[in-house]
């Protein structure tokens, strides 16, 4: 085999992901290649250690770093603001489609005068982006294919055209050093002053658009037909938004890369949606999260000198998203699970208290406490179960246990809670029979559920509505305000007036 040929093999094999099928010679070259690249990497790291790099980052001494960081902040702001509308309009994958489909536009813009002129690239990419969106809507309107197939199709076939063009450009003598491949994974450090200027202009346009068109955009996002019936320029706003999105995608691409730029449109706003409900807060929050993740991603990639920026930004974003998904105060998955669990145990506790009350009531409140054995018999549950329940009450200081561990007593707090639950139950039964005209034998199950959720206000209203009743439909007394709010501990039967 000729030497030039083997060198070529070595290079090709570096580009392959498997060594399923590697000739021994090329395997050797592969090995040599990786060792040398490894050495170069270690060399990089010894030249500038991680702490040094971090120091350089935070002192902002490096002008190119300042520029890159400023670019990332603009990018986060721009994508975060537009992304808010993209996510609530369920157009997340439109951003994805757009970001892949503009690739031929970038290549054409590059071909315009054979260098990385940001304005030419922006114009080329915007035109091709618009074309791709038109193609998607033409395919869905005129054929049987659905939107998802049309988007996937346009995304990947436009991308293929772009790859063809880039492959052709890179064969050119001047094309190889052009840095056009930086568009694929993103390298914030590759941005120069004119890129940043362009970014600032597009971010400023977005800011103006969102501030002054906020009401219209809100209507467009949540009820387009309503906006149209009011005569608002919905079509204009939609197209202006699509234009700004393609500006945002194209300008962000240098820093984040073709594949991942859509993540900057999706992840920060989705996180914001998990944290708040109001649209203006979603927008502000998503812009803040976008800026923070972009800057943090730039920092991480700056630590290791050769790392692409985009993936780190996206990972920083997904970390924030995961945290919000799990722990958001209102929406978080774990928060909701925890809330459900505490709710469940509260209901169980209230049911235990209610059962204690019923037992005491059956004995006309004559006895001091309730033996666990009696309690077990009354609830028809094994003693161990009852012990678990009483332990729970003890922990919550709703009951006390005698020293020999056989008798339960209400604490004042426990007594109040028991009375409140029983009152809620009986009031509701009375409400259903007297006012809703239910049969007395149909009201118990409903009351079992609602007794745990009736609030004080509703109870007051029910009492007024029922004219401050004393007994429920089954003739049992309803504990009054005195029991629920007062300090009274179970008293002998004659004072309850029963």
């Amino acid at each position, binding site marked *: 085999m000729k030497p030039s040929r083997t060198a070529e093999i070595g290079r090709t094999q570096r580009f392959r992901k498997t060594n399923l099928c*590697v000739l021994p010679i090329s395997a050797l070259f592969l090995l040599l290649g990786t060792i040398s690249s*490894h050495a170069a990497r270690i060399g990089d790291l010894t030249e500038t250690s991680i702490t040094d790099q971090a120091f350089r980052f935070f002192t902002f001494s490096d002008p190119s770093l300042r520029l890159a960081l400023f670019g990332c902040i603009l990018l986060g702001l721009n994508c975060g603001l537009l992304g808010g509308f993209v996510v609530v309009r369920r157009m*997340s994958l439109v951003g994805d489609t757009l970001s892949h489909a503009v690739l031929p536009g970038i290549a054409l813009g590059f071909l315009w005068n054979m260098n990385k002129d940001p304005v030419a690239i922006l114009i080329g990419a915007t035109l091709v982006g618009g074309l791709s969106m038109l193609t998607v809507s033409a395919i869905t309107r005129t054929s049987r294919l659905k939107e998802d197939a049309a988007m996937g199709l346009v995304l990947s076939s436009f991308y293929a055209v772009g790859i063809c063009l880039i492959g052709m450009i890179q064969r050119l003598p001047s094309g190889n050093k052009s840095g056009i491949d930086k568009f694929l994974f993103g390298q914030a450090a590759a941005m120069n002053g004119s890129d940043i200027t362009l970014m600032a202009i597009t971010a400023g346009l977005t800011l103006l658009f969102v501030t002054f068109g906020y009401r219209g955009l809100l209507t467009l996002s949540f009820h387009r037909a309503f906006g149209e019936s009011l005569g608002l320029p919905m079509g204009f706003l939609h197209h202006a938004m699509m234009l700004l999105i393609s500006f945002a995608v194209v300008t962000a691409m240098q820093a984040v890369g073709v594949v991942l730029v859509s993540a900057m449109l*999706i992840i920060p706003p989705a996180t914001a*949606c998990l944290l708040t409900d109001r649209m203006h807060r979603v927008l502000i929050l998503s812009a803040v999260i976008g800026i923070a993740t972009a800057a943090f991603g730039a920092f991480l990639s700056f630590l290791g000198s050769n790392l692409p920026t985009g993936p780190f930004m996206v990972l920083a974003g*997904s970390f924030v998203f995961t945290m919000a998904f799990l722990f958001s105060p209102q929406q978080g998955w774990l928060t909701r699970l925890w809330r459900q669990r505490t709710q469940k145990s509260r209901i169980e506790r209230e049911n235990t208290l209610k059962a204690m009350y019923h037992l005491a009531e059956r004995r006309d409140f004559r006895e001091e406490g309730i033996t666990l054995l009696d309690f077990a018999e009354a609830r028809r549950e094994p003693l161990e179960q009852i012990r678990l329940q009483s332990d729970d009450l003890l922990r919550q200081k709703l009951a006390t246990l005698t020293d020999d561990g056989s008798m339960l007593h209400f604490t004042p707090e426990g007594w109040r809670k028991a009375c409140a639950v029983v009152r809620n139950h009986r009031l509701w039964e009375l409400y259903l029979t007297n006012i809703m005209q239910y049969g007395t034998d149909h009201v118990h199950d409903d009351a079992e559920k609602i007794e745990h959720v009736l609030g004080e206000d509703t109870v007051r209203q029910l009492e007024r509505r029922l004219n401050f009743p004393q007994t429920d439909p089954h003739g049992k007394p309803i504990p009054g305000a005195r029991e629920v709010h007062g300090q009274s501990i179970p008293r002998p039967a004659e004072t309850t007036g029963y």
Partner: protein
Amino acid sequence: MDGLLPPFDAHRIFIAPWTTDIATYGWMALMAFLVTAACGLVGNYLILRRMALVGDAISHSVLPGLAVAFLISGKLTLPAMLAGALGAGLLTTFLIEFLHTRSRIKADAAIGITFCSLFALGVVLINVFASKVHLDAECVLYGELSNLTLAEFSLGIPEPVLVMGGVVFSVAVLIVVFYKELLITSFDALLAGSQGFAPGKMHLALMAVLSIVIVAAFESVGAILVIAMLILPGATAQLLSTRLPICLALSLLHASLSAIGGLHLSLMLGCPMAAAVVVAGTLLFGFAWMASLLKTRAGFEASMAAEATP
């Protein structure tokens, strides 16, 4: 601008690949056909189930699966590759489902978040462990339908072609064996469930097959072009026919035509062959779209004429 196109040489472009250079280009064309065929067969079902973008998602998220398989097993053997891809594919399916059922995140955002995050993770793993993972990020984007004569041969066939052939064969066998189940779960999941066909399991199985097809195709065409391979054949076929067996056959035809067209196109333009195959496939789709438009118009005019003359 000069030199963007290589000089046109009809012999080099159209004749040499099939005569003097057949040992090189024959295998490349065959490989391109096999990749497109495997993807196209599975893709038909994706389009029917409106899951084209889930294919998009899995094609991205296979990357971290491969990187992790590489890190664990040291080098990429076939079983490690398949395990990594399967794991990644099922994880993606699960995450998408989990995100949009357990929170107010909508399905489209869930897809976007999942695959972007996993893809970013893959790129970071490859970059950070560059010395251990011989996966080149460029290959992910461009694909590398490279010179198969350099690959190891067994039974006189280059090994990647052999593996891809095996994948196509197994996909075809699976489709024949589970034809009825796939058909009913794709068109009416509720009916399928009531008849005892377990649409959930079929969904998972389809995702598993999809991950395997994607990982097999990944090496040759990269993460993004594989989406085109998944959607183009099925979309073209479904424009031309409404019968599923005919669609499957048409997508095989599309695969073979775009493989051959792509070969010549890449020689003519001097661009990467994987992308050229997709461009050829897109042209075929364009023709099919035009044909279906003309047909609809002809049908419309015929019905108008029929109405006009009662």
